[in-house]
């Protein structure tokens, strides 16, 4: 569709959001990501039946851990949409980037810089 969306998003393609593991999310933040989000099929329409439900549960777990360690659970989110919804994909991308910008950089990144 050639819609524009922010360039500071690194897309990692997975066959199903069910493949996204809690560890992947945590390690992303450990390495300095400012935000992580998963985009999966509409609930009830998962191509692999329930992968997107598993992803949502893991996103929730990640939120709890990130809150507990002081990084902030708002930096991780899950969105559901049909694979044909290009405009929504772009909209979500913009929304997420705006929210993360408002939260500021990942505090771990700053600490790492200080230590270096």
């Amino acid at each position: 569709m050639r819609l524009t969306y922010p360039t500071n998003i690194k897309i990692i393609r997975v066959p199903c959001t069910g493949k996204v593991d809690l560890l992947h999310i945590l390690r992303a933040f450990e390495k300095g990501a400012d935000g992580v989000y998963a985009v999966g099929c509409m609930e009830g329409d998962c191509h692999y039946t329930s992968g997107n439900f598993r992803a949502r549960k893991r996103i929730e777990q990640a939120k709890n851990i990130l809150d507990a360690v002081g990084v902030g659970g708002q930096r991780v989110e899950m969105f559901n949409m049909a694979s044909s919804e290009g405009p929504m994909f772009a909209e979500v991308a913009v929304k997420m980037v705006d929210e993360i910008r408002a939260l500021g950089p990942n505090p771990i990144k700053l600490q790492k810089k200080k230590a270096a």
Partner: protein
Amino acid sequence: MIVADKKPMEEIIEDIKNHDKVLILGCNECVTVCEAGGKKEVGILASALRMYFLNQGKEMKIDEETLERQCDHEYLEEIRNIIDQYDAVVSIACGVGVQFMAEKYHAMPVYPGVNTCFMGATEERGLWTERCQGCGQCILSRTGGICPVSRCAKRVMNGPCGGSSKGMCEINKELVCAWQLIVERLKALDRFDEYEELSPIKDWSTDRAGGPRKVVREDVQP
């Protein structure tokens, strides 16, 4: 299997905050099955702790290892060559593993990362319930395969007590009454007449009450 549950991270943080080089050590058996201390949980805990301490401005080396078990000498020996790189270990194996670590590496601080709860079974993923308390004198042949020691809140030997209500225990409406189960089982096995046999007074000397226990098998000892 032994069922354990993750300790709140605050407790673990409190234990290791004054160390600089910590090894998170998992176990591939029971705690893996109950999703509390396996390789996955080691990864999650280590990542979370690294982020926490970085955020506190403390550069900590937090490494990850998972052994097959922590209750056998052979497996604990596997970390002999790397243990000196650390000044503390958080073992997320059951209490047995934590203690065996402490015995084996006498001068190395080792902290528990899980609360060890009971011997039990997986009723469904995410739900583990108690089945055995290791009383040392199994009476399951008399009770249709259902244990009154571990599943009755008052461990009555001639139950149920007067508080059994609609098949549930008086202490919790969602806890099934063990003696209700025993009666149903005896009926199913066509052994209901055995219900009236008085259960003898239990010998608790093989239970915890008798002191720390051991099993010796001379026929297999070196």
